[in-house]
């Protein structure tokens, strides 16, 4: 594909993340560091998964079962990692609060915590978009483009960009929901993120069927919109509850 098309595809997948980065994350250096560490952590999770599933790669079948298993185990692994990330974040929050005491600054506000969770989630989303999508683009610059036979309506790169955008949204905001759920002890929030992740992963299995992407991708966007709405509602509720106190 041409450079213009390639740039368009990248902006399609990563455009909202870029604007979120410029508006929110680049203002506070700590969030940039959180983003980078989060991206690295999820990259390591992908490498670990690829090591586990190395044997699978020799079967290049179109069957459903092995792929479903791959997705199940991968999502389970990543959700376990999210729990681990929460533990790390709790520890770091203690260190930050102790440091704030030492330099006589206030403890972290609730908005600060949510921003850190947002940066962590964006790291997850960016890691997904970059490694599943953007890294496939660059070898493909040139005069032709590529179509997948299961989904021939649009070039492969366009379909993949759309799917990547949905996943970036899901990952970014489900991290905010999950961290808020862990800190408040709200069961619904805590189970929301893994449930959404599983559902989204399973929905991509429909892409294995011929013309399955026509059903799968709009449903995926439905999930992304649900995540966005739920996150917005939860944040609004938390902020208005704590209007008097900032912690």
């Amino acid at each position: 594909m041409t450079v213009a098309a390639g740039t368009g595809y990248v902006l399609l997948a990563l455009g909202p993340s870029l604007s979120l980065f410029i508006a929110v994350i680049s203002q506070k250096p700590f969030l940039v560091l959180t983003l980078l560490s989060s991206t690295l952590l999820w990259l390591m999770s992908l490498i670990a998964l690829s090591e586990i599933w190395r044997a699978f790669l020799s079967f290049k079948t179109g069957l459903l079962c092995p792929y479903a298993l791959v997705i199940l185990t991968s999502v389970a692994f990543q959700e376990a990692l999210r729990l681990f990330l929460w533990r790390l974040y709790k520890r770091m929050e203690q260190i930050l609060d102790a440091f704030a005491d030492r330099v006589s600054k206030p403890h972290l506000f609730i908005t600060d915590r949510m921003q850190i969770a947002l940066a962590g989630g964006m790291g997850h989303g960016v890691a997904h978009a970059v490694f599943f999508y953007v890294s496939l683009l660059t070898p493909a610059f040139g005069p032709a483009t590529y179509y997948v036979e299961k989904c021939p309506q649009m070039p492969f790169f366009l379909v993949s960009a759309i799917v990547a955008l949905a996943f970036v949204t899901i990952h970014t905001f489900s991290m905010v929901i999950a961290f808020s759920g862990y800190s408040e002890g709200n069961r619904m929030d805590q189970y929301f993120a893994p449930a959404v992740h599983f559902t989204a992963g399973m929905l991509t299995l429909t892409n294995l069927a011929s013309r399955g992407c026509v059903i799968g991708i709009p449903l995926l966007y439905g999930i992304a919109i649900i995540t966005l709405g739920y996150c917005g509602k939860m944040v609004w509720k938390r902020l208005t509850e704590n209007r008097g106190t900032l912690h």
Partner: protein
Amino acid sequence: MDHQNPRPRTILETLGEEIVRIITPVSICMLLVVILVSILRGDSSSEGSSITTMATMAYTESSSDSMWDKLKGALLNSLVFVAVVTVVTFLLVLLFYLRCINFLKYYMGFSTFLVLGFMGGEISLLLIQVFSVPVDCITFAIVLFNFTVVGVLAVFLSKMAIFITQSYLVVIGMLVAYWFTLLPEWTTWVLLVAMALYDLAAVLLPGGPLRLLVELAMSRDEDIPALVYEARPIISNDAAPGGGVIQRRVWREGRGDLDENRGLRSNTRSDIASDSTPGTDLSVGIGESRRTIVDAEEGRVFRTDSELAAPLIQHRINVRMNSSEDGDNLALEGIGLASSGAIKLGLGDFIFYSVLVGRAAMYDFMTVYACYLAIIAGLGITLVLLAVYRKALPALPVSIMLGVLFYLLTRLLLEVFVVQCSMNLLMF
């Protein structure tokens, strides 16, 4: 939100600013090298026709050799290179000991001129060729000459605007790194690992040349002339008892080159009010076919005012006395908020990080992203160690080792998995 009383600012606003100020130029340098590599080497993947330099003296790799031969050849090359670097570093220590500072400074300016003029000129010519830019020789010569002279002045003089100096240092790092990527593949990787090990030895071992240099400079209370990238210091607007004191310390160090390639090394170091530990940088340039040497190290130093330094030290002592014995708190203090000195990173670190990423770019961009994250993580770890140990530390080993590890893991494992999942539009 409440607009009558403005919300007090939390530490999240400013924490980590120092690190981001050093990560940004490193990222820019890496990005430029990746762009250069993909433009200039995208079409021709000629591994065999590399330049004849000191680094390929022992063995010239050709694609028809077996893996074992390539490995042995690469090891020989790296040994030769590291030996040359060691000799030249000891020579530098000797010159510094004999107080030939002026010679070193002039040599540094001269090698900057060579890098910017000749290497920059060659790369510009290649770019003009690729993009068919319509420009005539005279204009090109004048523009190149002006660019080079301003660059030499920027690294030489201490009164230049800091942004110009930083940009020129990044450009020098980019040019030298691009030339390193012209080496054959196995040689490059083994050379990176060898330089990381050498860096570790030279800075931490008692007899290491860089450690000698640092101790010499400290005992004489002089600055080592070197090419060092200095991040802009942070002015803390709140709470320093002496007011916002800006303390800038830069190194001025020059190193002489002989007619050989030299290795580049640098240590990161963060400034502390008065007991600064100088970091040394060695610069090495890769010779072109003419075997010219490029020296790239320069720093600038401003003497801090002793009266102004006093409240800063006081502030630091107060902060230290109030701190608990928790090691974590100390780590945070060193990196982010309390120190008003700037973090310095030698140009050699820029160069070798960019060489690693540039080499990864020659394979595929997935390795580029993975190696970039690994190198930044390594840099972060080094900065944390710097805050904990407070002495000159080698910046290469952790990043290079992580970078090489992630390159291998991505190339061998991740790529196959992700490409297969992604081609079937299976994502999670």
